Every structure is written in C-alpha cells, then in structure tokens.
C-alpha cells in the first residue's frame, strides 16, 4: 500500500469512528434525562461545550489559554444580570452573554497574542485574574453572593423553561449547535490555516498568512462559544457566581480537554463528562476535589498525553492498518 492511500485509509477509518461515536453520543444524550438526573446531565453538557470551545483554541490553534473562565463566568454574569435586572427573555440573555464574552475575547486576545507560547498562557491567566478582581468589586455581580434567583422564563415567549424536560432539550440543542459550529470551523479552510499555525507558525507566516489575525479570530470564536456555554449554565442553575470566573475554573477546563484528548472533536466533551461526574462523586465522599484533579493532571501529563479519546483513536488507527 502506498503512503498516500495508507494515509487516506487512516483518515477514512478516523472519520468512520468519529461518526459512529457522534451518532451513539446523540442517542445517549436524548435518552439520558429519562435515566439520569437531568440537572446533572445539563451541567455536563454546559461544561462539555465549554471544553470543546476551549479545545478549538488549544487543540486546533495550539494556543493554551489559562483564562477561559473569564469568558465562561463573565457570560454567565452578563446573562444573569440581563435576565434578572432588565427582565430579558432567556434567549436574549444568552445572546448578550455570548456577545459579551466575544468582546472580552477580542480585548484579551489582542493583548495576549502579542506574546507567544508560555507567555501567552501567563498573560491570559493574569488578565482573567484581573477580571476576577473586577467581579469581586463591581456592584452588578453582587459580590460573594453572586446573582441569584434568575428566572428561567419562557423561551421565545412560548416554551416554559421552568419545566425540566424543556430546559434539558434546550440545553442539548445549545450544545449540539455549539459543537456543530466548532466542527464547521475546524473543517473549513479557515480551520486548516489554524492547524498550520499550530504545526509551524513560522512557515504559516512565510506562506503569507497574517497569523496574528487568524489567532485573534480563533481566540474570539473560542471565547464566544465558551460564553455561550456559560450563559446557558446561568439559565439552567438560575445563578451566576464568582466560582465560574476563578483561575481554578480555567484549570478545570484544561483538565477536561487534556483528559479527553487535546485536538479531538469529542475528547473534550468526554473529559468534561468524566470530570463533572468525578466531582459529583467526590463531593459526597469527603476526599478533596483539588487533590484528585491535581493528581489526574500530573498523571495525564506524564503518561497519558493523548487523552482517552486520543488513545482510542490511536489504537483504532493502528488496527485499521
């Protein structure tokens, strides 16, 4: 078999596997609320979209942002505030949260892409921490209490989101729309350029791409989608608090992506499900969550860098040969 056909075979095998997993996943998600506590699955879905949005940046552009909590939590605040204080309907609140996160992404991204590699990570972390301090002091976030008692309201004025199943299928729709958007971005010519930047930034520059603009665009898209997830979470749980803007949250989304598989389409979602599930289990056991997440981090980095889905892909491809 020639090199080229082998490569095609591999790509085809990967696509077959991916499609099977996606179909299986969607069926499972439709059935899930009838089997599992729906609020729990909604939480998983919000974090899964958050992790997929983060992966758009880390996995496909090669930029490690350590400040994505600012977009996730920031959007939650904007959405909760618009719904509670101005009486906006939920869909408008979520759109506002998403737009707000995109604007923040534009500012943070503009500053952060001025440095590369490890500095980029530190800058995003520092800017997100600045936003955290801003949220602690700004009156509209209601400080330590957070914005509580946000009404779920009626979607498009018709569908009552107070009904758990309505809420669930709305969140599922948000998740699928978000992930589809990421899939489209990644597999577009634009996405190819992002990957080329990840693989070799200097070569992309020498090919004539203005790398900075592409990075910034990817950063804004990732921020907006993270905000989409965060705003939806605010509607589900009916509150927005400081927890979602802390650096620990930025770390958590990195862990989800790393555990699931950096640069795979479904990996971050799987990782998010596992991390949220683990936290849920640990919450009742008394074992501290930070120790567990820290240990998983260390183990993943040392011996398991491909992540769960990445590892499955690698095995599958090895067999396909």
């Amino acid at each position: 078999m020639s090199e080229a056909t082998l490569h095609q075979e591999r790509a085809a095998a990967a696509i077959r596997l991916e499609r099977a997993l996606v179909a299986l996943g969607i069926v499972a998600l439709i059935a899930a609320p009838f089997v599992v506590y729906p609020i729990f699955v909604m939480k998983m879905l919000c974090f899964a979209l958050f992790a997929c949005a983060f992966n758009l940046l880390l996995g496909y552009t090669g930029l490690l942002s350590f400040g994505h909590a600012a977009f996730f939590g920031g959007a939650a605040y904007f959405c909760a505030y618009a719904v509670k204080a101005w009486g906006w309907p939920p869909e408008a609140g979520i759109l506002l949260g998403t737009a707000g996160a995109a604007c923040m992404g534009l500012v943070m991204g503009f500053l952060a892409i001025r440095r590369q590699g490890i500095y980029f990570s530190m800058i995003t972390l520092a800017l997100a921490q600045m936003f955290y301090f801003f949220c602690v002091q700004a009156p509209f976030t209601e400080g330590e209490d957070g914005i509580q008692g946000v009404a779920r309201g009626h979607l498009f004025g018709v569908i009552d989101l107070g009904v758990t199943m309505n809420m669930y299928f709305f969140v599922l729709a948000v998740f699928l729309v978000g992930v589809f958007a990421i899939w489209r971005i990644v597999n577009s010519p634009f996405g190819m350029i992002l990957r080329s930047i990840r693989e070799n930034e200097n070569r992309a520059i020498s090919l004539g791409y203005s790398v900075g603009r592409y990075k910034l665009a990817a950063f804004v898209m990732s921020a907006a989608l993270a905000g989409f997830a965060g705003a939806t979470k605010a509607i589900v749980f009916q509150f927005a608090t400081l927890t979602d803007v802390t650096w620990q949250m930025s770390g958590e989304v990195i862990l989800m992506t790393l555990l699931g598989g950096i640069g795979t389409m479904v990996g971050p979602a799987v990782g998010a499900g596992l991390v949220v599930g683990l936290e849920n289990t640990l919450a009742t056991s008394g074992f501290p969550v930070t120790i567990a997440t820290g240990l998983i981090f260390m183990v993943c980095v040392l011996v398991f860098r491909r992540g769960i889905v990445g590892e499955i892909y690698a095995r599958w491809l090895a067999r396909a040969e």
Partner: protein
Amino acid sequence: MTLIFGIPIQALLGQLLVGLINGSFYAMLSLGLAVIFGLLRIINFAHGALYMLGAFIGYLLLVHLGIGYWPALVLVPLIVGLFGIVVERLALSRLYRLDPLYGLLFTFGLALVIEGVFRYYYGVSGNPYAVPALLAGGTNLGFMFLPNYRGWVVVASLIVCIGTWLLIEKTRLGSYLRAATENPELVQAFGVNVPLLLTLTYGLGAALAGLAGILAAPVYQVSPLMGSDLIIVVFAVVVVGGMGSILGAIVTGYMLGLAEGLTKVFYPEASNLVVFVIMAVVLLLRPAGLFGRDA
C-alpha cells in the same frame, strides 16, 4: 501634619512600606521563576505552592518540634529545595523534550495537590507565626514608625536577590548555568553534567520559594491559600519584566510592589488590578517586556 498631594505623609510612607514588602516577595518569587525558566524552559506554576510549603514547614517546625525562626531560615529552604530536586528527578526531567506547555500543566497539577493536601489537614484559615524576639517591636525613624521585622524582610530579600544574581553572574557554577541556558548540547559536549545542572537549578528555584515563604510567615498569616493568589500576580510581574534577565525580574518585582502600594493610597479600589493594568500597558507598548530580549 505634612501633606503630599493631599495625603498625610505617614499614610503615604506606610503604604509605600507595604508595597516594598510585597515587592520583596514579588522580586524573590519572580527571580526563582526566571532562574528555573532560563534553564529548564518550564514555567513553574508550583512556585506559589512551594512558597506556601516553605511558610507551612516553618510553622510546623515551630509548633511540633519547637524549632524557631532562625534555624528554620536555613532548614526550610533545604527541605523545600530537596522536595524540588525529587520532583525534578521523578517527573520534570521526563518533560524536557516536550512542548513547554506540558511543564506548565504538570506544575499546575502539582500546585493543586500540595495546596489540596494542606487545605485538607489545616483548613483555609490562617495560622499566625510570631515575629522572632530579636526583631520584635519597631524603630521610630522620625518621619515614620518602622516595625523591625518588616525592615528585616526588605533587607533579607535584597540580600537574597543580590546573592542569587552574584551566584549566576559571577561564579563558575553560574557561568555553566548561563552557558547551558544558551546551548545545552554544547555545554554537555564540554563535559559539564547538564542533567545535574537542571536538577540543581530546580532545587535552587524551589529553595528560593521556600525561603520567601518562611520570610513571609510572620508578615502574612500562614495559610494554604497564600501561594496561589500571589503566583498569578508574580506571573504578571514576569510578563512585565521579561524573563531574559535576572536583574530585570528583581527590579520589576520591587517596582510593581511600590506601584501597588501607591495605588492603595490614591485609589484603593484598583490596588488589586494595578499590576495587571501595568502588564496590559507594557504589552501594548513593549511586547517583549521591559527587560526582555525575546519577542
């Protein structure tokens, strides 16, 4: 009472002193980060946790073994440095050939574990650590009252910073270190044991963080959370200073501490934010950092 810009001079000097103290810790920690990054190309996220570890070991030595401040000043850096050496040998040494991001992620996980363990056993509340008898009380400088211990912290941190700078710039070991930063393969070809050098460097960086921790113990409360918030500010300091030069890291640390102190006087609401704002401005005007060489 003398006024400067409508502010009593005592208040101004008091906040400047607080700024100088904070700056001392920024300088010591960013120095350690710069030393580690220079050779290992790893951003040590665990630096804040090592600083906390230093303070806590000092506290535990005092409470359980009755070992006081002065012996702890020697013991704590040794213990934390040894811990660093073990971590480097067991884990970090396996990550050098990978993307530097993995080093950041590993040390982030390590920081979570160290912090989590202490939170689990000691809760989040602070434990007071008494100022050593020799440095108790204060001195009236005529224009302001200076608590002796705070004066000592500033002096000690200057000694530590200048000492480390001399070690790296003026000694043979330091010259090996600087050479290995430029070109590790070549230095190894000359018969220098570079892996050992890497291990010792991480140990030295960890020891510096531990020393900063024990110096900080009587100033701040000894708490499991004392390191994690500090480390992010120190990252901003490092971005402002650029990690190209040791001296740059030190100077930037003190400068930003003072800037923070001044902000507390004139616009207290922004005192948490000012370091980050300065970082953003520096990124706009001089992306490589004030003392940075790399773009």
